[in-house]
């Protein structure tokens, strides 16, 4: 049988305001990297390659949040040349840590960092990709988890829905047999309201989850916040922990505002 050689799907990786950690996670797939590169054509990936081919692309992975006017144009262009667009990480999915500017006066921020703020063009907000264009799938985490990233890529290339669970970190602690740090030690932990995916790393190290994967699919803050308080967090502690790496996630944002109203 002489089948026509199948065209390899074309993959592109894009960066907006970010630390590059999520794209690095792709390069950290040492065992799979060369294999993956045989299955797909890596058409655009600045961190890894000086060669770049124009679109269209079958799958675009987007890291980072939108923080400049040019970013807005660029993400529309990327959407237009991508069959599927998947965001990777808290920056692209929930504005990232840089979205802390959303609560502040950016002019003041600029003046704090730059002597001549007028040289630096930036938007007053840091927004997730989905605030600008339709997104086919959002992969959470700051940074994303390596196994989940591979699953998402493979699934999209195969045209199926990625098997990425939507439950909370608590579930992963149970799966892993980690003793609950809140129950055993009274350590404040965001596990109950945080999206699974990391494999419950922090509690395994005896630390409470700080929510780097963003909100899980069902959160119940009115029931949860009193637990944090019981374990010694005051209003500002609660607000700060919700306003860190996923501060523009609507659930965390709403819960932090509610706290401040108290």
């Amino acid at each position, binding site marked *: 049988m002489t089948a026509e050689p199948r065209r390899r799907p074309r993959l592109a990786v894009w*960066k907006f*305001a*970010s*630390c*590059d*950690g*999520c*794209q*690095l*996670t792709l*390069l*950290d797939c*040492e*065992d799979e*990297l*060369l294999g993956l*590169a045989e299955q797909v054509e890596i058409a655009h990936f*600045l*961190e*890894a*390659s*000086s*060669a*770049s081919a124009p679109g269209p692309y079958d799958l675009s992975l987007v890291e980072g949040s939108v*923080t*400049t006017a040019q*970013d807005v144009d660029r993400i529309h262009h990327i959407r237009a040349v991508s069959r599927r667009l998947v965001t990777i990480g808290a920056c692209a999915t929930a504005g*990232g*840590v*840089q979205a*802390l*500017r959303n609560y*502040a006066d*950016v002019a*003041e*921020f*600029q003046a*704090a*960092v*730059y*002597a*001549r703020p007028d*040289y*630096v063009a*930036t938007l007053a907000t840091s927004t997730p990709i989905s605030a600008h264009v339709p997104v086919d799938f959002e992969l959470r985490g*700051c*940074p994303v988890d390596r196994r989940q990233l591979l699953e998402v890529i493979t699934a999209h290339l195969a045209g199926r829905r990625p098997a990425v669970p939507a439950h909370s970190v608590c579930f992963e602690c149970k799966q892993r047999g980690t003793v609950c740090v809140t129950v055993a030690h009274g350590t404040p932990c965001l596990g109950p309201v945080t999206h699974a995916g*990391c494999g419950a*790393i*922090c509690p*395994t*190290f*005896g*630390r409470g989850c*700080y929510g*780097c994967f963003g909100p899980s699919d069902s959160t119940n803050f009115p029931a949860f916040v009193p637990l944090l308080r019981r374990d010694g967090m005051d209003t500002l*502690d609660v607000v*700060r922990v919700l306003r*860190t*790496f996923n501060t523009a996630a609507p659930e965390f944002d709403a819960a932090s505002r509610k706290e401040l109203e108290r």
Partner: protein
Amino acid sequence: MTHRGSRVLHVGSLSRVEGEGSLHLRIRGEEVAEARLAIYEPPRFFEAFLRGRSYTEPPDITSRICGICPVAYQLSACRAIEDACGVTVDGQLAALRRLIYCGEWIESHTLHVHLLHAPDFHGCANVVELARSRRADVERGLRLKQAGNAIIELLGGRAVHPVNVRLGGFHRVPSRSELRPLEEQLRRAREDAALTVRWVAGFEFPEAGCDHDLLALAEPDRYAIESGTPTVMPAPHTAGLPATSRRALPTRTFGVREFGDHVVERQVPHSTALHARLDGRRHLTGPLARYAISGRLLSPIALQAAQDAGLGDPRQGVVCRNPYRSIVVRAVEVLHAVDEALRLIDAYEPPPRPYVDVPPRAGTGHGATEAPRGLLHHSYTLDAEGTVTDAVLVPPTAQNQDAIEEDLRRTVQEHLRSGDPTDAELTALCERAVRNHDPCISCSTHFLDLTVDRAGGGH
């Protein structure tokens, strides 16, 4: 004047840390009128929003400045805040910090050596292309990188933004037996690292020199990684030597707390990254600086490998000032870090507590460590409750920017004198010159769109 007239070369796409920037060259006849590394990575305002956060938070928050050297950010932050609080972390907790930092050196340097830099020396666009002709070398690099990641994952929970580092030490420390599986992987890695030094030593290196002042942390008895005193080796021309001089010059030091008096950042119009200068002069941090200042303290096998690789014997006062050979120094540092990690694991005894208490107090603290790409300084001012009221972060890329621009200028100048390079050739040259320094923008130094604006000679 020449037939070439003036031209402007703009290579779009290099940051304060990581990320994006571009390159801009203005040439008049045979003279380089301007070489600018313009960083347009959008500002993320870390220094601003650290204000008002609790003193326990900067290690986690500042790690998000750079996904490629998060441990460097975590440990510089810890040291600075502990300094403000008057706490010293020593003994086995300090050893574990050094160990996780070795993991980062191995991982980050290997990423740069194998995945980002080596393709340059083989005329390849990326590591995948390189793997077609040099499969074994690439696979060895991936194994080495994995070994570095394995250390960070074991001690920190994950390779990017590890969760286990905290003020005073760690949330949890491993037992001796938990570290043991690393040993076998690291012994293999030591062979891989030695082979890598030999491999990169065989590359072809353009003749080049640099006369930047060199700045690195130094310790009396070991190669500085997670602590040390800022030490300056002046440029050769201050002693009347040529830029390529391979002679070590007498060094001077200043305290970590005086860092801000010596290394001063200023803003330049073309970049969102601040440019820093050392006592008003351009300087370079990173592998070349460390090797010049502490090379004699490398572990014996790393020191031997360095000499076999043609870097010269630092014990005899030889230094390497060829930026293209930085890839060799990086490979040597990987070998040293692997060897050092094995030594630390061998000597490890779990400390009685995973961390020492760091009670808040009002004051300003300073901390500096050697990130893979150079000295990273943090300073924080705290109030009595431990709220951060001011934060100043000086990353290596900001410090190296002037040095990189000078390298660019020099490279292009030499090529203009010795031939008639096309824009494409100049672009390739410049990209290489930038990648030599592994700025936290090495990713985007694989930049692409080149716009050439050919102006007439009359401009």
